[in-house]
């Protein structure tokens, strides 16, 4: 009886040692260990996606039955708006042609024309602290390869910053959102010569889709409503990607390090699709 107990303790200790080694090795960015999920995710992702879609469809159906009258009214309103928008698009098409001509003539570049944008859908969402990563359906097969010196910015459909890729396997990648308390972004106010700052995730503020802004180069210049974009100084995120806007300033004279609160544009918990910016190598 005592021997069995000692053997079990020995087994648990060996497993603990092996798992701790795994933990240390997996903390290296671009570690091969992250790829071991490739065959499993290749099989399981379609199953999870199918079941998620089915449950979303069922939820949607039940919701539509409950809201049928308001949906009908909203549909009528949207049809009217659609007709107006179609007219606007036709009108703007001509402007677009003129813009392209001007652009070529003056050699103006689109903001992110150096970057290849890869679309991906969200596969699994965050599960709480320490498991606050979400996975998307673009991986090594799409050339999304993370190493110690290379990572990629992730944007939403409105080209607002969502986060960055931290690891990838054959068919999927893990994204760390900027709201995550481990995330730090070098940013600036979106004006020429705008003041620089650091945007950090916060465990309490992230519930309200907010981040902390600190290390501000000139706090007196910062105002509520200022739009904050990436500065490109950190080397990880390209410059000019919208992050959010300032909603509060901690202006207490007694506090040495002044902070502000930023509301992030992107609602990553509601996202179904994201875009990975590839192309330029960071650092």
């Amino acid at each position: 009886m005592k021997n069995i107990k000692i053997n079990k303790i020995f087994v648990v200790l060996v497993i603990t040692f092996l798992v701790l080694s795994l933990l240390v090795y997996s903390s290296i960015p671009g570690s091969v260990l992250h790829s071991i999920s490739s065959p499993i995710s290749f099989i399981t992702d379609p199953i999870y996606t199918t079941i998620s879609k089915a449950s979303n469809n069922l939820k949607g159906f039940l919701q539509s039955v409950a809201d049928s009258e308001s949906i009908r009214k909203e549909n009528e309103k949207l049809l009217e708006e659609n007709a107006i928008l179609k007219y606007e698009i036709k009108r703007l098409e001509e402007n677009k042609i003129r813009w392209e001509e001007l652009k070529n003539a003056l050699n103006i570049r689109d903001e992110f024309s150096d970057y290849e944008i890869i679309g991906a859908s969200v596969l699994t969402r965050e599960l709480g602290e320490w498991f606050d990563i979400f996975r998307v359906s673009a991986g090594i097969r799409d050339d999304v390869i993370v190493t110690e010196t290379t990572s990629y910015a992730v944007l939403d459909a409105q080209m607002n910053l969502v986060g960055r890729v931290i690891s990838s396997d054959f068919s999927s990648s893990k994204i760390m959102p900027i709201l995550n308390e481990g995330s730090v972004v070098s940013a600036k106010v979106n004006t020429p010569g705008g003041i620089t700052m650091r945007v950090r995730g916060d465990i309490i503020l992230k519930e309200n889709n907010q981040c902390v802004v600190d290390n501000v180069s000139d706090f007196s210049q910062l105002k509520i409503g200022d739009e904050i974009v990436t500065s490109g100084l950190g080397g990880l995120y390209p410059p000019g990607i919208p992050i959010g806007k300032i909603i509060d300033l901690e202006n207490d004279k007694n506090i040495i390090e002044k902070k502000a609160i930023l509301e992030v544009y992107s609602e990553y918990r509601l996202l179904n699709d994201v875009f990975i910016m590839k192309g330029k190598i960071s650092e």
Partner: protein
Amino acid sequence: MKKGVVRKIIVYSIYILLVSLATFSFTDIINYKGVTPEYFLVFCILIGYLHGPSDLIPIAIISGSIKDMFSGRLLGISILTSLYIGLLAANLFKKYFDKNILVSIAQVIIGTSIYTLSIYFSFYIFNNINHSLLEYLNFVFYQRFIPVITLNVVIGIILYLIIKYISPYSKKIDIYDEVITTKSSRI
């Protein structure tokens, strides 16, 4: 005996598949302000309590690996937490209360408390928290601790009933185990 092993493997595979589906596909359905039940943790606690360390160890490794691979920043955190909390459940009260639903719920509460508090304690130590300790504790207790315990207890009751009535062991082996347990506790 081989039939018993095959049954065990099939039933545990089905459990793991169901728990994985619940964890990754239904996060939008059962959640309270972003807090979701810890399906894998509750599963490991109940397996540890109901079927002992021998079943728990491989289950904790497999389920922990799945959770880390799909949602974790690092590989291994879930494996270690599931393993140790499951082992605690396997040894706490087991001698006096075997396969009791109320004790299972108590195990889930204790295991979830240890898990939740250690996560937020480690966050406080290793991250630069911009809030006072009181504000942080208030947030952790009301926004995390209470909701996750409540959700885990609900899931625990459902999983207990599933594991008890769709057991990986046939009734004959269960009775055999009870006899062995009774004899060994007298030694």
